[in-house]
């Protein structure tokens, strides 16, 4: 039986367990009249029986499937002819790959080499046996669970408590996924990055000024030794994010002030969703816009003024990224400004201050920690933004402060290094993970700092 069919059978079995458990509970108190004598509602007895039928079987099912392929592959390999087994690990893994391809039907049996064909036949036979055993085992466990729980059902049996305990554990498990994601990110990225730093020293990566990740395929190749100094990437990221913040902070802040303090209620109701549209536009659309409209336009204007502007200039990417971040800054600033108590404003008005003086000298100052937190979050957003820079910024690692030239960023390099064919061992691929680690740590630091500031600020006025 295929795993999918087995799952369907298991679902059917647990449905059966549900009805059996429920009817058993009712029978124990003599039908629906005696339902008062039951500790829990009959459906809880059904649910508990179904749980005990399905859960242990599912656990076995999952573990079995996780290890099945590895064990079968090892068995098949150990039965291969001696000359195949004598091959180096890399070559052996190629042969095993061929076997897998034949098994999956990507390569037909006729086209395979005899030893591969024999191994594939053995693989399929072993898999058949394994599936048969799994089917038997899972169904047996399900039935045992069903029978045992059903036999223990009595009017005093606390079924509801048991079911609710299980549900609560399920809820805990779901909330743990978020923690597991973080652990997964750190573990996977750090593991690959550690392998990278095994090949390239960390100080060369962090402080090197030369980035050209093309490594030689053969040892005697000229001019492509591969150097991994990431400073130009950090600089490019900083330059583009800086331009973006120069655009986003004033526009975001001023529009937040205007909408929160000046605008008529109707005007606010109409314009706010409009600005929020900016936040909902996919970044790939911004990238397309930056690359095909803003970039060439800037180049044209530059020519008109006698300036040399690259089509993939840092300015184009930064401007568009800034616009993308505007709603982010403005909605956070809006929250912070409305959180400032009215009494502070009233105090300033009573002293004769005009509205703008109140805003500048009282409201903004009171909201400043929150606004700084929001801006920090926006910076982390700008650093991690990928599609705009992939489409509108360059690939060459330039160390320049001129915004009209093309620079490259950390995220652009991650994408270029990892898109396309790749092998997991070359420093070129691993470098992407090292960059990812730096990106993750920097944004994480910014986020923690910003959220801490924002939280502190919120407490201040609560």
């Amino acid at each position, binding site marked *: 039986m295929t795993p999918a069919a087995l799952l369907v059978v298991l679902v059917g079995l647990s449905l059966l367990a549900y009805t059996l458990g429920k009817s058993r509970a009712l029978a124990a108190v003599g039908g629906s009249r005696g339902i008062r004598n039951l500790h829990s509602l009959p459906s809880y007895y059904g649910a508990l029986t179904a749980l005990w039928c399905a859960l242990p079987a599912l656990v076995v099912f999952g573990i079995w499937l996780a290890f099945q392929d590895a064990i079968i592959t090892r068995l098949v390999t150990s039965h291969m002819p001696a000359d195949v087994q004598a091959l180096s690990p890399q070559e052996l893994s190629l042969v095993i790959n061929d076997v897998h391809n034949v098994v999956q039907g990507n390569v037909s049996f006729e086209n395979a080499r005899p030893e591969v064909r024999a191994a594939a036949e053995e693989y399929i036979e072993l898999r058949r046996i394994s599936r048969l055993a799994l089917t038997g085992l899972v169904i047996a466990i399900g039935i045992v669970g069903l029978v045992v729980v059903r036999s223990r059902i009595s009017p005093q049996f606390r079924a509801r408590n048991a079911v*609710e305990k299980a549900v*609560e554990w399920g*809820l*805990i498990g*779901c*909330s*743990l996924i*978020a923690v597991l*994601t*973080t652990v*997964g*990110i750190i573990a*996977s*990225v750090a593991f*690959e990055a550690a392998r990278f730093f095994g090949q390239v020293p960390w100080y060369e990566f962090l402080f090197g000024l030369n980035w050209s990740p093309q490594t030689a395929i053969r040892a005697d190749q000229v001019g492509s030794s591969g150097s991994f100094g990431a400073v130009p990437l950090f600089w490019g990221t900083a330059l583009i994010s800086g331009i973006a913040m120069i655009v986003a902070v*004033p526009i975001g802040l*001023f*529009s937040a002030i*205007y*909408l929160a303090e*000046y605008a008529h209620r109707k005007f606010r109701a109409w314009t706010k969703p*409009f*600005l929020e549209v*900016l936040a*909902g*536009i*996919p*970044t*790939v*659309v911004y990238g*397309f*816009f930056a690359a*095909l409209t803003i970039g060439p336009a800037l180049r044209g204007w530059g020519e008109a003024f006698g300036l040399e502007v690259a089509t993939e200039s840092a300015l184009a990417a930064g401007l568009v990224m800034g616009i993308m971040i505007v709603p982010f800054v403005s909605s956070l600033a809006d929250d912070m400004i409305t959180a400032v108590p009215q009494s502070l404003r009233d105090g300033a008005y009573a*002293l*004769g201050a005009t*509205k*703008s*003086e109140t805003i*500048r000298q009282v409201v903004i100052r009171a909201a400043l920690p929150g606004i700084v937190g929001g801006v920090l979050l926006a910076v*982390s*957003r700008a*650093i*991690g933004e*990928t*599609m705009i820079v*992939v*489409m509108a910024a360059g690939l060459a690692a330039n160390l320049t402060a001129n915004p009209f030239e093309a620079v490259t960023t950390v*995220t652009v390099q*991650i*994408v270029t290094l*990892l*898109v396309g064919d790749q092998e997991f061992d070359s420093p070129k691929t691993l470098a*992407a*993970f090292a960059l*990812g680690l730096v*990106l*993750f740590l920097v*944004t*994480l630091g910014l986020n923690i700092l910003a*959220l801490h500031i924002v939280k502190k600020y919120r407490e201040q006025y609560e």
Partner: protein
Amino acid sequence: MNASGSNVPGDAGSRPSVSRRTPKETQEQVARSLKRRYWAERRFRMYGLAAVLIGIVFVLFLFATIIAKGASTFRQSYVKLDVFYDPAIIDPAGTRKPEDIANADYQAIIRAALRERFPNVEGRRDTRELTRLVSSGASFDLRSRVKNNEDLIGQRETQWVLASDDVDMLMKGRISRETADDGGPLSAQQIGWIDSLAEADALELRFNRTFFTHGDSREPEQAGVGGAVMGSLFTLALTLLLSFPIGVSAAIYLEEFARKNRWTDLIEVNINNLAAVPSIVFGLLGLAVFIGFFGLPRSAPLVGALVLTLLTLPTIIIASRAALKGVPPSIREAALGMGASKIQMVTHHVLPLAMPGMLTGTIIGMARALGETAPLLMIGMVAFIVDVPRGFTDPATVLPVQVFLWADSPERAFVERTSGAIIVLLAFLVVMNATAVVLRNRFERRW
């Protein structure tokens, strides 16, 4: 503090020189500065208005350029040809075997039909230029027509066939009428033919069905978003199936069950931080764990959905928690007071009341997932895929990645396609967000 600081009485009081002034003098000084202060006030207000307007103008400008570039995608040039399904070409042996019919040279049929339309075209070079007016995809259309209805063989039929991308661009006025000698893509002869076809109403713009049904293609006129839309649907369906139950469960635990301690604090900080981690990092996670470690297939909606699930979970959890917080405690107390268990209280009372808010958050999370590109690049959903995917493990691409791929293509016609794909993408987003707004307005209760 700046120069205007002295005008604020609270500030002025601390200065001994001011305190020596008489009230009248102070009043006069304030009156003198009023003009400047009101002017500053107006200026400040203008800055605010300008900032809001910049945002609005940018939105309008963005939409206007995309629509101006992309609206023409939905119409496509077709050439009307009098096609003769010549048995001598399709099925010379007369066997009607499906393989023979499938392998026949339908290009020759189109060539014959074009020659019939322009009888005085002679010579190989001219004939080749003439056939270039029609897309190479037209022969596939004819083939599928014959495959579906073998009786067509030997018959004559007036058929609208797909024109090539250069003809299409000329019809839409996207390329100038410069001839090949001046650097244009079409020769003077070809432009002449196009004009004569257009005059005879045998060349016109019709609704572009290809764009919605086909997958990707190297030829712009045959490329469509059908494959990408299906890929997006598969990916999003699975994302929703995974992230909604998990997100809601996690929110229920954190909001209703968890005791306040360091452990739950950790989970909470964690979720807030995950919401701000760059999406490309999730792509790295997917590449290293799902593809590298678990060996799941590359480019598959399955892996895309797993990555997007992790990406949208924080959004859904945060929104769901807010929705749960909005349910007043009195409802919980009433349920508990009637003897409900905690789980019964949540599932029977709190959850139904919080559901609209949770659904709104989920739709917004899904809209974000639909527009997400970078993590999907990492797990290989950037491949050139012609076939429309049919399952969760078929290689597929999604709408925003299709936009990214086409944006890189040099052909003129692909700029139009890219904008067209963006319009489709934005249309989906508008529908999703509108649903979220309607849901919020209709069902969200305030206590």
